[in-house]
């Protein structure tokens, strides 16, 4: 069984598609943002946790690779791998799939940083958040580095 974390699932919304009925590029990112929210829920940064700690995550940087089209109404899901972690940053890698399919429709790497909302300024993870992140990260250490991680955009040579 895969160690990847399922962080979001649901149908492709009709409001997210273009004239052709295909998911538009900005809405792939919307789904991946929901997946980052799903990860936050799992590590104690849901609504209540954000209020209690005064912390939230910002995405500093995000990289998307669009591989296949997907139409309105199709049930999709996001699987998440944690690539790296320090005291206040987490590098996550999301892939979008049709429900229960292993084919990758799109990949998205995000660098998330923990923020003290009262600043707002970056700050180390709350201890209970860090320990949950470390527990999720542990089984991911031995996973292969995914295909589209750490990419720079460039013309093919």
């Amino acid at each position, binding site marked *: 069984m895969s160690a990847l974390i399922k962080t979001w699932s649901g149908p492709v*919304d*009709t*409001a*997210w*598609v*273009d*004239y052709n009925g295909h998911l*538009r*590029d*900005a*809405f792939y*990112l*919307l789904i991946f*943002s929901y997946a980052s929210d799903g990860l936050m829920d799992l590590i104690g940064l849901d609504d209540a946790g954000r209020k209690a700690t005064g912390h939230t995550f*910002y*995405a*500093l*940087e*995000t*990289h*998307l*690779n*669009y591989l296949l089209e997907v139409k*309105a109404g199709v049930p999709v899901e996001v699987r998440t791998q944690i690539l*790296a*972690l*320090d005291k206040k*940053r987490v*590098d996550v890698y999301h892939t979008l799939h049709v429900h229960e399919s292993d084919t990758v429709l799109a990949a998205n*790497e*995000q*660098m998330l940083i923990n923020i003290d909302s009262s600043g707002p300024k970056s700050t180390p993870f709350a201890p209970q958040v860090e320990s949950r992140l470390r527990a999720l990260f542990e089984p991911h250490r031995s996973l292969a580095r995914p295909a589209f*991680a*750490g*990419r*720079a*955009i*460039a*013309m093919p040579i």
Partner: protein
Amino acid sequence: MTHSDTPAKRLSTPLEGTPARAWDPSAAIATPLKLYNPQVLPEWVDYNGHMSESCYLLVFGDNSDAFFRYIGIDETYRDVRGFSFYTVETHIHNLREAALGAPLRLSLQLLDADDKRMHLFHSLTHAETGDLLATGEQMLVHVDMAQGRAAPMPEWLHARVHAVKAAHSLLARPKQAGAFIGIRRKN
């Protein structure tokens, strides 16, 4: 997420249905191009009152749309001739927040192009403070939609794209271009 009783309709884009402008080969090409200046709309902001991440990308897409019209591409090119540009890769840097109603200014730099690709760089700034809010780098591929595969641009389009590329070759390469994501450790 809100679900009303009527089925959701797809959202239209600001320039949909606006015909491409006529190309004037003798006109100077702005470096960079400044084609789109939206304001942060209520539907773009999150519960904190700040523009949400995916809406930065929405705005970059609309800026690409303005660029398509600048070089002569509109719905006719897609629906009648059967060609379009698809985004295959995107890299966004989120630098500062934008609040509801903030006046935005977009610029577009063509970093590179070949016979079927365009490598674009969008900069989003606050129109009053001049602060850089976000950048978006994208690789677009010209696609023959019936064949479902990459195809060379027609000669007239290739000439326009390469005229923009030549004009923009004078610009400095933005520091966010060509970046990869990773936790950099000192030592």
